[in-house]
C-alpha cells in the first residue's frame, strides 16, 4: 500500500510548535518543560513516549482511589467520580491513555442517568482505560460484555422469547459499521445472537436458558451464531476499518478529513490489524498530521479546554472545580446526552457554553497565587520575574498561550492592559512591584484564555 498523506513525515522541522501540537492532540496540552523534552526526543521518540505503560503511576492511582473510597470521598456519588476522572486527567503522566479513554467513552456511550449504578460506570471506564490503545477487537468484545452497557442498551433483559434490538442496532450503526452497511434483518438476527448476554450484578454472565441458539444469518454469515460470532463477522466487514479510522481521524487530526486521507487511514488501520496503538503511532508521525494546516483546526472539547489550560500553563484548580467548569461547558462526564455520545466541534459552542468558557477564563485570571494551599497560578513560572517590560511580557504570553498567533496590534493592546489599573496606567508599578506584575500577568492569561483563538485546538 503506497501512502502519501499518512507516509511518515521526515522533512518538516520538529520544533516547539510541532511538539505542542502533538502533545495537545495526543493529550491535553503540555507545559514548557514537557514541550522542551519532546523537542529533544525528536518526533519518533516523543510519539513512542506517549505509549509509556505508566504502570507505576497507575498503581498509585489505584491505591489512592482505594484509600479515599468511602471515608474521604463517596465514590457512589457521580459528581465525585467525575472529579476523580478530572484528577486523573490533570495529573497523569500518560495523557494519551486518558484522552483515548475519553474518546472511547464518547464512542461506546453510556450514561449514568440510565445506568444509575455509579460503580458500573467506574468499572466501564476502567475497562476502556485498560484497553484504550489495545486492539479494537478486544475493546468491542469487552464493551459488549460490560455491565454498564448491558444496562444502557437493554442487553440485560434481552431474551430468546423477547429479544431487544437496542444493542445490536447501536453496535452496527454507531460502534462499528455505520448506516448503509447492514440491513434491518441483520439487526434483528444480531439481536437474537446476543440474547442471554446478561449480567449478575457487576459481572457479565451468559444466561444459556435465555439465549436463542437457533439458525441465524448476519451480514451474510449463516449458522447458530452467538454474540462472538457476530463480532467476528463485523470485524471482517470491509466498512469497519474506514468507519473506525475516520472517527479516530476526526478526533485526533481534523474535523473534516478528505476522503483520500480516510482511505489511507483505513488501510493503515487494517494493516495494523486494528491495533489502536499502531494506528496512532503512524498517524502522529504522518505528513498529514504534522502539517501546519492540521494545527488548531479543531474546537476544544470542554475537557481539553479546562484540563488543557491547567496542564499547559500551570493553573492549579481543584478537580471538583474543573469538573464544574467542564460540565458548565456542556460535557457531563459519564453523562453524554445520548448513545451517539458528544457531537463535539461546533456543537460545543453557543451563547450559554460560550459564557461558561468566558467564566473559566475570568476565573483563571482571578486565581489567588502565592501559596501551596488552594487554587494557584504561578505567574513567574510563565514569565520570568526579571522580564519587566510589558511589551516583552505580552510577547511571551502570546507565544506561550496562543503560539504567537496574535497580531502586532493585539499584542500592543495586551501590553497596555498589563499596566492598566483602576486609577490609570501604572507602568512604574508594573516594573518595580512584583506582586502587581504577577497579578496583571495572571489577568492577562485569563484574558487570553477567553479569546476565541484559545478555543481553536
Amino acid at each position, binding site marked *: 500500500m503506497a501512502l502519501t498523506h499518512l507516509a511518515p513525515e521526515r522533512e518538516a522541522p520538529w520544533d516547539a510548535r510541532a511538539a505542542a501540537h502533538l502533545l495537545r492532540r495526543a493529550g491535553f496540552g503540555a507545559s514548557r518543560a514537557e514541550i522542551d523534552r519532546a523537542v529533544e526526543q525528536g518526533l519518533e521518540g516523543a510519539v513512542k513516549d506517549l505509549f509509556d505503560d505508566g504502570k507505576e503511576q497507575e498503581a498509585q492511582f489505584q491505591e489512592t482511589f482505594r484509600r479515599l473510597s468511602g471515608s474521604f470521598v463517596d465514590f457512589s456519588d457521580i459528581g465525585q467520580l467525575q472529579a476523580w476522572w478530572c484528577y486523573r486527567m490533570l495529573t497523569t503522566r500518560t495523557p494519551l491513555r486518558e484522552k483515548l479513554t475519553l474518546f472511547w467513552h464518547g464512542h461506546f456511550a453510556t450514561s449514568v*442517568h440510565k445506568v444509575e449504578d455509579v460503580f458500573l460506570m467506574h468499572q466501564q471506564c476502567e475497562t476502556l482505560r485498560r484497553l484504550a490503545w489495545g486492539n479494537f477487537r478486544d475493546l468491542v468484545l469487552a464493551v459488549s460484555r460490560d455491565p454498564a452497557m448491558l444496562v444502557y442498551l437493554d442487553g440485560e433483559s434481552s431474551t430468546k422469547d423477547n429479544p431487544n434490538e437496542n444493542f445490536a442496532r447501536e453496535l452496527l450503526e454507531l460502534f462499528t459499521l455505520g448506516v448503509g452497511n447492514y440491513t434491518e434483518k441483520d439487526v434483528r438476527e444480531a439481536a437474537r445472537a446476543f440474547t442471554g448476554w446478561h449480567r449478575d450484578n457487576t459481572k457479565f454472565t451468559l444466561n444459556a436458558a435465555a439465549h436463542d441458539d437457533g439458525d441465524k444469518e448476519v451480514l451474510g454469515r449463516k449458522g447458530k451464531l452467538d454474540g462472538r460470532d457476530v463480532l467476528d463477522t463485523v470485524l471482517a466487514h470491509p466498512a469497519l476499518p474506514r468507519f473506525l479510522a475516520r472517527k479516530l481521524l476526526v478526533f485526533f487530526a481534523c474535523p473534516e478529513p478528505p476522503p483520500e486521507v480516510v482511505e489511507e487511514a483505513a488501510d493503515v488501520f487494517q494493516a495494523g490489524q486494528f491495533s489502536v496503538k499502531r494506528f496512532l503511532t503512524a498517524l502522529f508521525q504522518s505528513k498529514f498530521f504534522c502539517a501546519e494546516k492540521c494545527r488548531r483546526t479543531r474546537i476544544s472539547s470542554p475537557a481539553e479546554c479546562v484540563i488543557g489550560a491547567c496542564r499547559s500553563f500551570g493553573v492549579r484548580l481543584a478537580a471538583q472545580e474543573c469538573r464544574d467548569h467542564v460540565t458548565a461547558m456542556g460535557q457531563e462526564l459519564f453523562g453524554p446526552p445520548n448513545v451517539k455520545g458528544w457531537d463535539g466541534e461546533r456543537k460545543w459552542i453557543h451563547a450559554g457554553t460560550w459564557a461558561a468558557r468566558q467564566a473559566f477564563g475570568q476565573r483563571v485570571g482571578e486565581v489567588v497565587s502565592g501559596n501551596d494551599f488552594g487554587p494557584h497560578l504561578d505567574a513567574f513560572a510563565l514569565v520570568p520575574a526579571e522580564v519587566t517590560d510589558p511589551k516583552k511580557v505580552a510577547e511571551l504570553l502570546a507565544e506561550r498561550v496562543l503560539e504567537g498567533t496574535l497580531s502586532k496590534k493585539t499584542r500592543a493592546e495586551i501590553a497596555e492592559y498589563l499596566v492598566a489599573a483602576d486609577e490609570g496606567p501604572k507602568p512604574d508599578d508594573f516594573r518595580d512591584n512584583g506582586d502587581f506584575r504577577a497579578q496583571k500577568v495572571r489577568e492577562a492569561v485569563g484574558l487570553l484564555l477567553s479569546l476565541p483563538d484559545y478555543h481553536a485546538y
Partner: protein
Amino acid sequence: MLTRRQFLGSGAGVSALTLGGALPGLFARAADDAVKADRGDRVLVVVELAGGNDGLNTVIPFEDDLYHKARPTLHVAKEQVQKLAGPVGLHPSMEAAARLFQEGKLAVVQGVGYPEPDRSHFRSMEIWHTASTGQRPPSAGWLGRTLDASFKEGADDSLTGLALTDSLPQAFLADKLTVPVVRQIENFGTGVGDTPDADPPRAKLLRKLSTGPTVKGEPIPFLRRQAEAAYRTAARLREAAAKYQSDVEYPGDLGAQLRRAAQVIAANLGVRLVWVSQGGYDTHSKQGPTHQALLGELSGALAAFQKDLEKQKAADRVLVMTFSEFGRRVDENGSQGTDHGAASCLFLCGSKVKGGLAGTYPSLAKLGEGDLVHTVDFRAVYATVLEKWLGCDAEKLLGEKFKGMELLKL
C-alpha cells in the same frame, strides 16, 4: 411515514417545511438587531414536572369509591377538592389553578399516556422528549426537530429556543443548532462583556479582541461569530431583565423560572419555545406534604405567569403546557407514597386555551397491571400544539399522524 433516516434528522433527510400561510415560520426574523419581533409570534412554554406526577391526586375523581379505597392515607376528601366540573376536582393546594379553570384559561387533559407504558424515569422521559415510543429514539427531541425544520442558514436564531433550567432538555436536542441554556437573565454572561456604560477595561478589551473580521482559518472565524452572537444574546437578555416591570409575585423556583420566561417574552426577543422544570415528583414515600407543596407552587406559578403576561399584554400569544414522564400507581404503597405508574393528566394554560376538561378520565376498575390506562396519546396533544399553535407540520415532526384535539380557541 418518514424513513428512519429522515426521522432521525441525520442532516441529509430533513427537508424544509412549508408552513401554513397564516403563521410565520419560527425563524421569521432577519439577522438584524433592529428588526422587532412580530407581536404575532406565538410562544410555547413547556413546564416539565420531573419524577412522575401523581395525576390521581392532582385531578381527583372524588366521587369514585375505588379512589378512596385504593389510598387509605393519601386520598383527598370530597369536601377538600378544588371543584372543577363534574366528578373531578383539583388537589386542595391548587386554588389558583382552579380559579384559572373558572376563568376558562385552563384545559385539564385527562388520561394522557402512550401504549405499553414504560415505568423507567429515563426511558419514559425519553419517550416524552423525543415523542417516540420506538426502540431507538431519534437523536433530536420533538422541539429540536421543530427548530431544525424551519432553520434558515444566516437567520438570527440564537434565542428562538431557550432552556431556563440547569441543563439542556433532550426535547431541545437539534441537529442544526444548539439551544442555549440560560440559568439567570440578569447577569447572564457576566464575563462575556458588560454594557458600554459599566464597562470595566477587561470586558471592553475582550469584546474588542474577540469580534470583527479575521484572516485566520477555521475554526477561528466561526468562534468569533459565536462570540459576537453571545455578546448580542447577553446584551439582549440583560436588556430584557432591565426593561421588565412587574409587581407580580411568583412562588418558588418554578416561579422564578417562569418570571424569567415572562421577561424574555415581554422583551420581544424572538423567543418561541421556552422550557422550565419543576422537580421532586418522585414521591415513593410520605407523598402527602411533598405533593401538596409541589402542586401549590405549580398552581401559584401558573397563575402568576398568566397574570403577568396579561399585564405585559402578551397573554394572547403564549401557551403553557405541563407534562410528566408518567403518573403513579393507583394503590398507595406501604410508605404512604406511590410507585411509578402510567397514565396521568396534563394542563394547558393561557388566554387562547379552550378551558375545561378534555379527554376521558381513565377507569379505576379496568387497570393495566395495576395502573391507569391512557385514553389520550400524548402525541395528540403535541400534534395539536404543533399544528394549531405553532403552525408546523405535526405529522412530519412526529413521524405519524395523530388526530388533533379541541384544546385551543383561536
